[in-house]
């Protein structure tokens, strides 16, 4: 009884150590590779966000200038008319 119990315990311990030792885990180098990849993705996300802001600012600047240009053309026509009457 005792022997079988000891055998059971030893077998359990052996099984546990085998499971732990032979499990399929990434090594340190692989883990670092993943971490570096995650960091690069985070940095890219920031860069994309910055570029989107830059794009929006440029679109606004262009729209403003387009408005000013339209106004300028109107002003030109108006001034031409006024100058003729002077």
């Amino acid at each position, binding site marked *: 009884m005792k022997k079988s*119990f000891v055998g059971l315990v030893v077998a359990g*311990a052996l099984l*546990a150590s085998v499971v732990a030792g032979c*499990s399929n885990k*990434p090594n340190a180098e692989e883990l670092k590779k*993943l971490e570096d990849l*995650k960091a690069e993705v985070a940095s890219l996300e920031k860069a994309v966000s910055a570029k989107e802001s830059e*794009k929006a600012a440029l679109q606004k600047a262009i729209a403003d200038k387009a408005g000013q240009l339209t106004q*300028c053309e109107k002003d030109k026509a108006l001034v031409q008319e006024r100058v003729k009457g002077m």
Partner: protein
Amino acid sequence: MKFFSRLSLITVLLVASLAVVMAQEMTKDEWQKQMTEYTAKQADLKSKLNTLQGEIDALKKQDADKAAALKKCNDELMALVGADAASDRAFAAQLDQIDAKINELSKLSNQDLWARKSELDDVQKMLDAVKKNKLSALPKYYDRIKEQQNRLDALRKTVDNVQMSMTYTVGTWAKDRDCLWNIAKKPKIYDNAFLWPKIWQGNRDQIKNPDVIKKGQVLKIPAKADLTKEEKAAVRSYWQRKQSAAPAGK
């Protein structure tokens, strides 16, 4: 027996802690899964970044083109009025000067404004001069000049109203040296003694002889202006009467 129970307890703990550690640590499959996921994300973001950069470059060009077109339009606008940056600044300074003068006159009481009404003419002259300048046709100045003219007209109206209600109460000769000549000479009346016939003709109902005015008489003061034909004729007849009334030989 005790030994075995302890050993079994230790083994159970060992297996349990091992299971916990294994549960916490990433498996190779999970690592691979995350690597695949993040690599795809990386590629997607890089592609997005490239697309955005291309769009930004195109937008920068568009922005530069619009800026150039706007500059060209503004240059053409200035060419239409024959102005450059320096004359534009000088013109704006002239308008500032007119604004300052109108502001100064606007702060005066009605009586003080009336006394300085000749300055309204000076401002009008300045305003007329800027209106003749082609720069006044520019929208940024056009409305401003219009507004200045409106304010000046309002001041003139105030002066006219003051003028309409302007009266002078005659004092004594001894104290005030009041006669029509001296009253007309007062800065707050006409500031010009030769306009005395205006007061006389404007108060014919109460002044029969311009040499005689009485203390306490309230005289209407007509608007300052050159003498009319009638007023000049009245002066002539006044002097003729005076000459004919003078003793012979004088």
